[in-house]
């Protein structure tokens, strides 16, 4: 009798339990991939700025505002005076623009919520990627279509790709397959000190 129970335990119960554990782990792992890597993160911003309107509808170049992207490691978020270059006149009557004007007049910086971030010990360089011909969309997704995705105008921009080391190396190792339109692209560096220093 005892022997039967033991047999039953090992031959039936244990595999079922293991199966359930493995499957639930795999499913959780798969389902939580986006959650873990911050994909879909869309924080509420202080001003309802629409990338769709500026970069999409009006077709303003990304670099009109993100001026550092070709020259520097960081793309840089535009200073308020860049916004005011147009909005001193344009749409000055809208409430969001008035909010912006108020920041400008009070000489206060705008506290934008950060959407994309690589850890402190990784030194990502915008300039080298953009100057090699990579488009902003390749990592940041179709920003020109990002607008009030969930009906909240303050949540206008979000993260679409993973920014883990695995994602970096995925492109660096398979540069040619990933970017067939850039024939002169070299394989990205894989040595540690390309990013860590």
């Amino acid at each position: 009798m005892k022997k039967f129970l033991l047999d039953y335990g090992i031959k039936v119960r244990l595999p079922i339990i293991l199966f359930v554990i493995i499957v639930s782990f795999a499913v959780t792992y798969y389902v939580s991939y986006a959650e873990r890597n911050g994909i879909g993160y869309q924080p509420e911003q202080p001003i309802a700025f629409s990338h769709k309107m500026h970069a999409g509808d009006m077709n303003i170049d990304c670099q009109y505002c993100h001026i550092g992207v070709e020259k520097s490691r960081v793309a840089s978020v535009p200073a308020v005076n860049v916004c005011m270059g147009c909005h001193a006149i344009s749409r000055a009557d809208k409430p969001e623009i008035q909010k912006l004007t108020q920041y400008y007049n009070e000489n206060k910086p705008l506290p934008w919520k950060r959407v994309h971030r690589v850890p402190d010990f990784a030194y990502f360089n915008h300039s080298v990627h953009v100057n090699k011909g990579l488009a902003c969309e390749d990592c940041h997704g179709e920003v020109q279509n990002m607008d009030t995705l969930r009906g909240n105008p303050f949540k206008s921009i979000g993260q679409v790709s993973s920014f883990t080391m695995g994602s970096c190396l995925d492109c660096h190792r398979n540069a040619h397959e990933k970017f067939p339109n850039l024939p002169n692209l070299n394989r990205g560096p894989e040595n540690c000190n390309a990013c860590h220093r």
Partner: protein
Amino acid sequence: MDKGKLNISNMIIENGPEAKREDSEDLVEQALNKTYWRSFKELYNDPDFKDAVKYEFTKESEEKPDLSKLSGISRRRFLALMSASAALAAAGCSNYKDKGLVIAYNQKPEEVVLGLPNYYASACTGCGSACGILVKTREGRPIKIDGNPDHPVSKGKICTKGQASIMNLYNPERLREPMFNKLQTSWDEANKNIVNELKSASSSGKEIAIITHSVLSPSLKKLLDEFKVTYPTAKIYSYEVFNDTPKQNAWFKSYGKRTIPALQLDKAKVILALESDFLGNELNQIENTRLYSQTRDVMSKNEFSRLYAVEGAVTLTGTNADYRIRLRTDAIEEFVICILNELVNRKKVSAFAADSRVTSVLASYNLNDFAAKYYLDLKSLNQLIEDLTKHQGEGIILAGDKLPESTHIAANLLNEVLGNTKLYSSESENVELMPLSTNDELSALDDNMQKGGVGVVIHFDTNPVFHFSPDYNYAEALKKVHTVVTLTEEISESAELSGYVLPINDPLESWGDFKTRTGFYSLQQPIIAPLYNTRQKEAILLNWKDLEKPYNEKIYNDYIRENWEKNLYPVFGSLAPFNKFWLTILHDGVALVNEKSESAGTFSTGAFAESSRMKAGSDFIVLLQNNNSVGDGRFASNGWLQELPNPITKTVWDNYAALSPQAASEIGVNSNDLVEITLGSKKQTLPVFVQPGLADKVIEISLGYGRTAAGAVGTGVGVNANVLISKAPAITERFYNNAQITKVSGTYEIASTQEHYPIDSDPLLKDIQYKRGIIREGTYEEYKTNPKFLKEKEGRLNLQPINKPPVYESKDYTGYKWGMAIDLNKCTGCGACITACNVENNIPIVGKDQVIVNREMMWIRLDRYYSGTPDAPKTSYQPMLCQHCDYAPCENVCPVVATTHSNDGLNAMAYNRCVGTRYCSNNCPYKVRRFNYFDFRDHFRDSIQYAEPLDLLANPEVTVRSRGIMEKCTFCIQRIMKERQDAIQENRKVIGSNVKTACQEACPAYAIVFGDVNDKESEIAKYREHELAYSVLEEIKVLPNVTYIAKLRNVLEESK
């Protein structure tokens, strides 16, 4: 894998050490005939040193922490607190995905691009040289100081103090608010009261004394003059602890003027330094080093110069000399006159041989007798005389700033006799805007203070309470002064005794103009707005001069501009309108002007004939020295400088009485024992440091230590030797004879890095471990007759390259590959590279207790080896840093692959992967890896390095390492990546010579070359191919990428 490891060890034994062991005796004798030693412990095989060699980590560094010093909190309680705080933190966080804010500028300055540095030219005010500097800023905050390449004197280089002075700007202990009687007050209140005091002192005929350091600024001089008009009883006193006064006085007596011309050291074939540390701690060392190193260039066809040093102390100059003659400092004058006698009376060199006033003085001196009396080697003296005679007009005799006037006059005469005045620059001479106060003037001030005749004393960024001789009894005298005002950046001994303590701007927040030489002005501009409620010291005076004018940040700027527009701009004859002209010179940091320096007058023989003679005694001599770290004490609160090893003794965080081995054994003391030094009525107790090469009966003590009020870092470091200074010295203020020295009970541990990280390990190699060719040297003669002599010696050592060891991954390095060359002929061992590296790479200060247990973190170690006898050692310097070996032994022992090799030949370190096993350091043959035993920023002095605003100092391109991480030199990977970024942006190839490492940029001797070794046209490739190139520990065949150029000594006989 195991098989592979076995193979490599076999291979090394077959080709390397085994082969050497067989005929080690032979090789010792023939090939590398020298024993190098770094300390007495090593020379005499002390067990401590053997341990240091045998064990990578010393017993102390492995010690368990002292439990009594730990927190008494129990484990249960700790866990309870932890879980409570974790629960609180979890409850407090609304969104775990939150990534914080991106705070953009409201109005971004046009010139700022986030992530890219901006550079501003300014001037350093750390000493009387006023070197031009170029300050690197990131997003508006200064992060690094280098020399200004456009500046005619500094030419892009700056000394250790200038490099590290950036830390003073961010010193968390800077004074932030004006204080009156130690209570905070407002500027308006303080100014109003002080002006009232000034007015009442002025009207009641009481003196107003302004005590400043040397005045180098034309605008400040004008301001002081105007101040004296407003307050007629005001007097200006200026002093420097380290000054050139005896030299200037001698120049005045010899030539009728006080301004000494600049020297064309680069044209010198023979240099004779008399107790002169012109490469080390005397004014103008940056230019001197640059010019001197040009005469030691193996890449040019020019002949090497020959440097003779005659000295009692052991200085950087002396240790770099080809011939170093050890002589009591008070016998140097006699030595010079003996040489003069030899040249003028015997050899009849120059017209002075007919001048009876000179010859009669000389006749009573005889070099042979002199040499016999002081046991000098007559051969090298004759060599000196022959060289001086042969190179008339191409030599220079330099007398040190501690020597008295009479010696300087004799040295001037010697230069005249030899026609060496040709090397005095006709274009540039030193300018003295305002002579320093004489001791008589300072005594008069002191007496007046004691009598109550002084109403107001203003310490104009000076610290006389600490600096002045105890003879003045200055602290007592201050009590009799009604109002004492100290303008200072940080707390000081003088500020402690002052009613008003007014915080002033850092030099990086200040405006200024400086005139130190003819031919140019240096400009100083603020790099950052004042961090606190401070004002520029000149602006404060300006405000007191005319209180009606409201203060604003720009008043002194306006004042300088006005002065320039009215008085200086017309001199330039510039075609540009003034505004444009002003902005141009501010941008350049220097304004060149066409000025003729007055020609030197004729030498007055009377000055020589009439001057009194320094008499050589037989008692102990005390020399009070400058140093390359804290200076006269003003850098005491700078931890980087306190921890910078002394170039010769390698001591940190202390001063001491240096004694020769002979003198130490006579008194019966050893290093770390305490002695009392008595000079007349003055006494001080110091620890002893036994210094090889010091003249017997010479005691060397460094000034600037022993501050009693210098904040958390500087207070109580070392012993105050200023108390030995006399206000009426028999010789000079920093040179005394008739000193007594007695042993007193007790010991004091001096921290020294000289035995740390020794490169020798295998006990099998015991007999030849010092002869492994770590330092290779030859003579210039040898090199000239056979340029390949060094390689031929190498051949006998069987240093053929081996086949690729199988455990290493194959790399072919087809693209660019980084390498460094260090020319040991140029390197003087000054330590500028170490400081530059500290600033660039965010290297923490660890503190004296940690240095004692071998845990200093500096990535460059400047090894100093002695060879020969303890009495007269020869010294070799060698900067040692990560060698980025092609077959790096550290890489294949790392269990977590945190250290790897890149395709451009770098040995990379991924901090976030390191778990701190320290295997890599254990396996590193060069001992260049540094381990963070603590988060040293947190561990040192109540985590002062984490205090605001010191975090702003960090270079944002380099990770700040935490506890448990191994680190080492990266070849400034951040600068390499910047060049790669620029190359991609400009669509070109990476150009190796565009990358300058921080140490290379700082080296005043241009001894460090860096670049792409695959670019055959580059400088680095040429250095690697040079006949004198070698790498350290070649026989272990790890193929290092740092190449050393063997030092050539310009001596005649083969040095033994």
